[in-house]
């Protein structure tokens, strides 16, 4: 058996080795600073940005954009998914249209979005919302439709119907699938935000990196990139936390049980 301490540190072995190799390569001059600054320089850039408070400003703006966009797009996706999943009439009416729109890559809309919204906040929010809408919509729809028919039949025969059937059987039965949609959406959320911020912005992490590129500040560019990685990981941890809480009844999510 592996020791718990070893088990916990195991995922970090490869990142640490990469960092060490990178530092060595930079120090020995094998890797030019123009290509990639040494990790130490990145750390220093990070520190000076933190002290000046600049990084917090960008971080706050980007996080706000991401969350608001996610709330709008994800909320709509969830709502429409519940609607089309629950009512055949809504599916007939809306699903074909939504499937057509789904096949448009969000980034292909950028020229149109700039024409519609200019380059202010609403353009970025629209792009994020558009992108995160579909994973949530599809997974919610699928989740509702794939609730065990036997359980629904059982609940009906035990006198549940309408709202009680919905909240006690159908919704809990589709939570697992909805959460898969949430995780997909969270991943997409950052991708879309990065693109939106690099096109046109006066602040945000994307703006910070694009600005640094103009002045060949590769260390700041790397800080931005690493921030995105960190934020993405953070979003994923949050989604996992939700899964652990909402799916605590699920054998696959119970700690200490043989899988």
């Amino acid at each position, binding site marked *: 058996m592996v020791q718990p301490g070893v088990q916990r540190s195991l995922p970090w072995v490869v990142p640490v080795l990469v960092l060490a190799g990178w530092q060595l390569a930079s120090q020995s001059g094998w890797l030019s600073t123009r290509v990639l600054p040494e990790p130490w320089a990145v750390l220093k850039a990070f520190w000076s940005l933190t002290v000046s408070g600049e990084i917090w400003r960008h971080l706050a703006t980007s996080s706000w954009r991401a969350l608001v966009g996610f709330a709008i797009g994800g909320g709509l996706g969830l709502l429409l998914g519940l609607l089309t999943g629950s009512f055949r009439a809504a599916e007939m009416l809306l699903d074909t249209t939504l499937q057509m729109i789904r096949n448009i890559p969000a980034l292909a809309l950028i020229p149109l979005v700039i024409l519609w919204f200019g380059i202010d906040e609403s353009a970025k929010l629209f792009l994020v919302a558009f992108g995160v809408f579909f994973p949530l919509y599809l997974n919610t729809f699928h989740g509702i439709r794939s609730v065990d028919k036997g359980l629904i039949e059982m609940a009906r025969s035990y006198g*549940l119907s309408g709202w009680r059937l919905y909240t006690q059987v159908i919704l809990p039965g589709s939570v697992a699938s909805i959460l898969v949609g949430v995780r997909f959406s969270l991943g997409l959320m950052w991708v879309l935000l990065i693109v939106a911020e690099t096109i046109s912005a006066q602040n945000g992490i994307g703006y910070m990196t694009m600005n640094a590129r103009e002045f060949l500040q590769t260390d700041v560019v790397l800080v931005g990139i690493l921030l995105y990685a960190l934020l993405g990981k953070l979003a994923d941890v949050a989604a996992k936390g939700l899964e652990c809480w909402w799916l605590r009844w699920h*054998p696959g999510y119970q700690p200490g049980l043989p899988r």
Partner: protein
Amino acid sequence: MSHSPIQLQAGSLALTPLRGATSPARLVTPRVSALKGGGGAAVQVDKLAKRYGEREVLRQVDLQIAPGEFIVIVGRSGCGKSTLLRLLAGLEAPDQGRIRLDGNAQSRPQTDTRLMFQDARLLPWKRVLDNVALGLQGADVKERAREALSQVGLADRAGDWPALLSGGQRQRVALARALVHTPRLLLLDEPLGALDALTRIEMHRLIERLWQRHGFTALLVTHDVSEAIALADRVVLIEAHRIALDERIALPRPRHRGPAFAAHEERILERVLQQPERLDAEAEASLGGATHPVRALRWAV
């Protein structure tokens, strides 16, 4: 006189509480129960017919069940026995004929009919106690659910998730969930089909005890003839979409395997397997005394 070793073993196992089970004394609590039902319902089925598209499932089925009677329906798979149960539960509507409970035409949401399914169908996202309390309304929901749970010997698992229970425990929770509604007609659709032999014996005893205590009318569907004889007042055989045999089992309860048990089993089994030419000779031989070990084994598999 010597018993076969297999028979002895089966008999002693049936008397010993199994691992994880509570003793019979705790299973049936003597105090006055809040789960007192209104006794059993009388069921009358007249000329019932059901078809799915072109396929005929039930044809001209007539069946009278007295209040509190325990009926076991046997038949090969696909003979329509489960469909009959689903019709009685109101899950499906008959194409012809009618079903009456206590003389009243059966109406759709049946509050005094409860169905136990082949799979327990517990909601995995509700804890055991909340599963039992499903569909209950009122102030004392939790107490009633807790009492039903203790009647099936699972009071200590009230806070667990269903995923942590064994197959037999799940069916006991499902049984508690049905009983908590104090049904007057309990329908059991092969609820023991997926359980191992020992758990089945235990479940037979539990179901029989709860049936005797609550006095509901019980209708069990099974493909296991010995299970039928262990539990039934009447065994009804459905064959080719209609009732082919309706036999009263007058053995004293709780039933133990003996010559008379084996004779019933043999006769019905022969009938199911459609070997009528051997029926009389075999039945007589069995009634004469010696049961042979192979038959004793059969009821456990």
